[in-house]
């Protein structure tokens, strides 16, 4: 078996536990149903391209993006724990290279991101039922989003993990960053209703681009702007990945 697959196997073993599943799958699903329907009296319809989306469908699709971002926390936590509990050194003195280690982390979050996005899509299916527009490009678009999203946010989490030695600092910074990404984005509410400075801030946030791409996939509305967003996502993800790899390669023992 390839070294990367063995590391992914190990990563999944140590990351998947009941608390994580609750946070990753159960919580978003409950949120879609409760918040989705509670707020639909306030937000009747969200304009989306040529049509309008029911708010629960809008929220559920945003939640997939949010979930992909959240699953990358796993990568940060793996790196951080491996350094704290000595496993990074141990692995690096074994039959692995640093690129093996980094790629296995990215694959791990890619898998977790894809699986949880798929689960939410399946469970949330009743709420997007009306507006869904699966086509030939739908699935590739969602896979693209899961992969670039994993690389992008996984790299952010990895960069923070390599920079911090204390667990409090690590948790606070990562959670704050991700909370900020979540709320200053179109994941939970449309940009159209927001006041002007916030609207601009939405588009400084990679999560907005990620969620836009996912929505375009699910609801079948691929515009030029979405293609531009995909390009921007790819560039940011690549840059952050290179930075994260550099930092991880430089980590001393």
């Amino acid at each position, binding site marked *: *078996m390839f070294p990367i697959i*063995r*590391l992914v*196997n*190990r990563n999944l*073993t*140590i990351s998947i*536990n009941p608390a994580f599943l609750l946070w990753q799958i159960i919580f978003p699903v409950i949120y879609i149903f409760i918040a989705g329907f509670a707020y639909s009296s306030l937000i009747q319809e969200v304009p989306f391209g040529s049509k309008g989306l029911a708010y629960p469908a809008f929220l559920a699709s945003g939640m997939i993006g949010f979930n992909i971002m959240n699953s990358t926390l796993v990568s940060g936590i793996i790196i951080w*724990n491996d350094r704290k*509990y*000595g*496993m990074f*050194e*141990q*692995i*690096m*003195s*074994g*039959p*692995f*290279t640093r690129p093996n280690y980094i790629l296995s982390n990215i694959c791990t979050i890619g898998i977790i991101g894809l699986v949880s996005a798929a689960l939410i899509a399946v469970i949330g299916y009743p709420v997007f039922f009306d507006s869904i527009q699966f086509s030939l490009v739908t699935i590739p678009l969602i896979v693209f989003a899961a992969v670039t999203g994993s690389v992008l946010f996984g790299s952010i989490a990895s960069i923070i993990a390599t920079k911090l030695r204390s667990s409090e600092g690590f948790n606070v910074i990562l959670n704050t960053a991700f909370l900020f990404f979540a709320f200053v984005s179109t994941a939970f509410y449309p940009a159209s209703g927001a006041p002007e400075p916030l609207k601009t801030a939405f588009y400084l946030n990679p999560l907005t681009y990620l969620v836009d791409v996912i929505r375009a996939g699910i609801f079948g509305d691929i515009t030029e702007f979405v293609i531009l967003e995909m390009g921007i996502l790819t560039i940011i993800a690549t840059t952050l990945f290179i930075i994260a790899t550099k930092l991880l390669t430089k980590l*001393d*023992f």
Partner: protein
Amino acid sequence: MFCINVDRLSKFYGSIKAVNDITLSVKSGQVFGFLGPNGAGKSTTIKLLTTLIQPSGGSLKILGIDAIKNPLQVRNKIGVVLQQPSYEPTLTVEKSLEKYGMMWDIPKSERKIRTEKLLNEFDLIEIRKKRNEDLSIGQRRRVQVAREFMHDMDLLFLDEPTVGLDPSARRKLLDYLKNKVNTGLTIFFTTHILTEAEYLCDEIAIIDKGKIIAVDTPTALKNRFGKEKTIKIHLLKNLQEIKSLLSGIVDCKIEFNTGTDITIHSTQSELVLMKILRILNENKIDIDDLSAVPTNLEEIFLKMVEENVSNY
């Protein structure tokens, strides 16, 4: 024949010369002890030899492979137990052995067999279902060492593996290692516990301040200090004038540890002892206890490190 060849190896951290121009060779099938005080450069040497860090200079061959050019090839053939604890906090003891075997690509059926065997050999049966984060420090260390035997290797590096182990666990581990060496394994072992090195090692290097100051067999190191013996005398009463009374004796080094304890190092121990006894007798000083032992490695070690300090 040699499985480690180190030539003029150095590792500098800024102005700190953690490892300073060391040269050594380790024969296959033996236990090589690496001894030195805190901060001597033992762990840094292990990290260099296991390719965890890059040397600042020198060359390095492990199992005949150039370790600077082909580090991965080296790592595939060695086992490493670092000084720092390493574990997966949430996994149980048996699961962490099992997963470690998986990481080394050991087939599943073989992993099961090895896990059971190691749980037995390292007295881990009772704690097999416990999570690593709930173990005591010594238990954790045992798991860490046991885990390394999940995979096959030609050369094993152990950085102070017995730290935190109780005397019985310590002895068991040393015997386990001896057995492994009899089946062909080579071990590079660091410690600052001399008796351990004496018990286990075929050859010993003493390192201090990044420099190797002696390499030899334990016996040869002792012989090098010839017939030197240590005499310890414990007096019944505290006596101030004892120092001046014994000041005339030559050919020895006397330490007055407290008023009642006297330690004498000498290569002419019989002669010196007779002189001392005569003086004590003449002055009617009662002796509570007396012993004469060959100087052990511990003292040789302290002496060498001390001399190394005074050379600076």
